[in-house]
């Protein structure tokens, strides 16, 4: 898989436009993680659903789930964390519907991104904002 500068810019640009988040500091890491997964291919939308709470009571344990009917693999990224990588899920021949639920850590209010690689080799993504509260007592 060849990764060129133009491809990376296109991915970064399209993501920035749709997410409207100033993730400059880790943009390169995010771009890198995405490029590693997609090889610089275009990323579409639709056919993938990322479910997150709108507001997380505590950033230590944020329940999320992702489903994409024809995915062969999915990566999860948290753009406001010190490192954007969260998990990579590869679906084997005996996986049922292509879904998974897990619990993740979010350092602050941020965008969570799921990108699926579909069986036909194309890519699609979903983005959700999760507000992470910092409690008065919870500390």
């Amino acid at each position, binding site marked *: 898989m060849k990764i060129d500068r133009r491809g990376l810019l296109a991915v970064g640009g399209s993501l920035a436009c749709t997410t409207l988040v100033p993730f400059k500091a880790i943009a390169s890491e995010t771009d890198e993680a995405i490029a590693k997964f997609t090889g610089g291919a275009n990323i579409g939308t639709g056919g993938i659903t990322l479910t997150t709470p709108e507001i997380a009571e505590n950033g*230590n344990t944020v329940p999320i789930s992702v489903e994409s009917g024809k995915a062969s693999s999915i990566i999860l990224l948290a753009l406001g964390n010190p*490192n954007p990588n969260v*998990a990579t899920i590869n679906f084997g021949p005996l*996986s*049922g519907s292509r879904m*998974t639920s*897990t*619990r993740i850590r979010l350092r602050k209010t941020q965008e969570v991104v799921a990108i699926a690689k579909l069986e036909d080799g194309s890519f699609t993504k979903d983005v959700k904002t999760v507000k992470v509260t910092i409690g008065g007592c919870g500390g």
Partner: protein
Amino acid sequence: MAKGVKPRIKVPKQASAGDMITIKTLISHKMETGLRKDSDGNKIPRSIINRFTCDFNGENVVDVGLDPAISVNPYFQFNAIVPESGEFKFTWYDDDGSVYEKAKKITVT
């Protein structure tokens, strides 16, 4: 081997051939991110479960790569198709080289 690691899994005892079943897995693990410092200001080294796999009769169901952003006591729920009776095998890989395994049989009618 990290301390206090204990895997838990939930798989139905039986299913019909070709059924899609729900599997829940959880392993108690501190998932130390490698970003924290101790009281002396020294970095606490990263210590996480970095990979989790589920196979059924030798065929793969899911293969997950985990990063430090996965919460303490990593939890995964997913689905599997069961073509025949057999055994699920669950494997968790620790940064320190430890491998934790658990198996569960299912009867397909």
